């Protein structure tokens, strides 16, 4: 017997499939219900806010999956600076290879972008929450710059990471030596001691 969590997951997967196929504007609750093999009533019970609620939750869900894959990819990193370097390279490549994202950025950016940023803080909270334990480890090892609090460092690093993977600017994030320079001379210079930054 399907429980609420699996029904919700099934609906989100179906909505994502509809967006991938037709884009945001043409994805209706009816389409999603049909794709999921569920009734509209079931959909509205799971997403009382209707279509807007469903679309936003689908974007958040996919971002969660994206960051989950990212976390797996960097799981073995020996220290915070290496974690950040590997995370940047992986995340930037993954964004460029994300077909649905790249398509929607061209065809309907005004529909997607508010759902990723203004309407939810969850992706940022996820990244910040993920970084905190690693920063705590650095703090215990005496590798945080004096006066830097873990919470502030996590918030700062999270925001800058999201900025960099979306808009790398002049940096070539496919080049490991550029990423190393970016992370150790610029991004983490406010956070880690010079010794921690220099270590391989």
């Amino acid at each position, binding site marked *: 017997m399907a429980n609420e969590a699996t029904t919700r997951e099934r609906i989100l997967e179906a909505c994502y499939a509809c967006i991938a196929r037709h884009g945001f504007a043409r994805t209706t609750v009816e389409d999603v219900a049909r794709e999921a093999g569920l009734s509209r009533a079931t959909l509205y019970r799971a997403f009382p806010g209707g279509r807007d609620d469903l679309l936003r939750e689908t974007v958040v869900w996919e971002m969660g999956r994206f960051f989950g894959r990212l976390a797996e990819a960097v799981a073995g990193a020996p220290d915070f600076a290496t974690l950040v370097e590997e995370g940047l390279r992986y995340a930037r490549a993954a964004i460029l290879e994300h077909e649905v994202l790249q398509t929607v950025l061209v065809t309907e*950016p*005004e529909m997607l*972008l508010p759902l990723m940023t*203004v309407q939810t803080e969850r992706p940022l909270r996820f990244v910040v929450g993920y970084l905190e334990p690693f920063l705590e480890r650095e703090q215990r090892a005496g590798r945080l710059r004096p006066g*830097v609090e873990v919470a502030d460092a996590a918030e700062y690093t999270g925001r800058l990471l999201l*900025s960099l993977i979306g*808009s790398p600017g002049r940096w070539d994030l496919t080049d490991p030596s550029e990423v190393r320079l970016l992370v150790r001379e610029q991004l983490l210079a406010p956070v880690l001691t010079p010794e921690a930054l220099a270590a391989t």
Partner: protein
Amino acid sequence: MAAVTTAPSTEQRLLEATLACLARHGIAKTTLDDVARKAGVARATLYRYFPGKQALLAAAVATEAARMVAAIDAAGAAAEDLEDAVVAMMRTAAHELSHQAALQFALAHEPEQVLPYLAFSGGDAFLAAASGAFAPTLARFLPAERVPRAAEWCARMVLTVLEPSEQALIADDAVVRDMVREFVIPGLVPESLRTVHSKG
């Protein structure tokens, strides 16, 4: 000699009227008729200068951007060491952005209109343009090869705090000063170059 003041040109009046309408009604609801009326010109006159809404908006944005870049540059030019210069430039940037009424309206009420110009490839374009506000001043204090990345770093800090949730933060001068000292300066230059005075 007495100061000579010239009346604003028709083009200037149209651009000022555009910004006033945008600040009040937003992008979607501002019409060319509104702007013409506000500027006190005939619609046909408006069309002579700006063939349509897109052209008018682009010109208004470009004019405001140029004005802000000049203000940021002027703030940096007056400073005598690197830290004071960056603090002055970031405070000016924060002040200009938080007081740009049309931008604030859009961020608050119609983010979908502006986010494509601030995120992903739009973010890259913003960084390239905004870097120009910081580069000339940084060139007085830093080795030439460091300037482009340092300027982009400052521009990225500005971009990061442009989110609606951050607007209350950057309106506070003391907060900006602390942010610059804690997070911007360390990422601009290695410790050794940090207390540089002007190269001359």
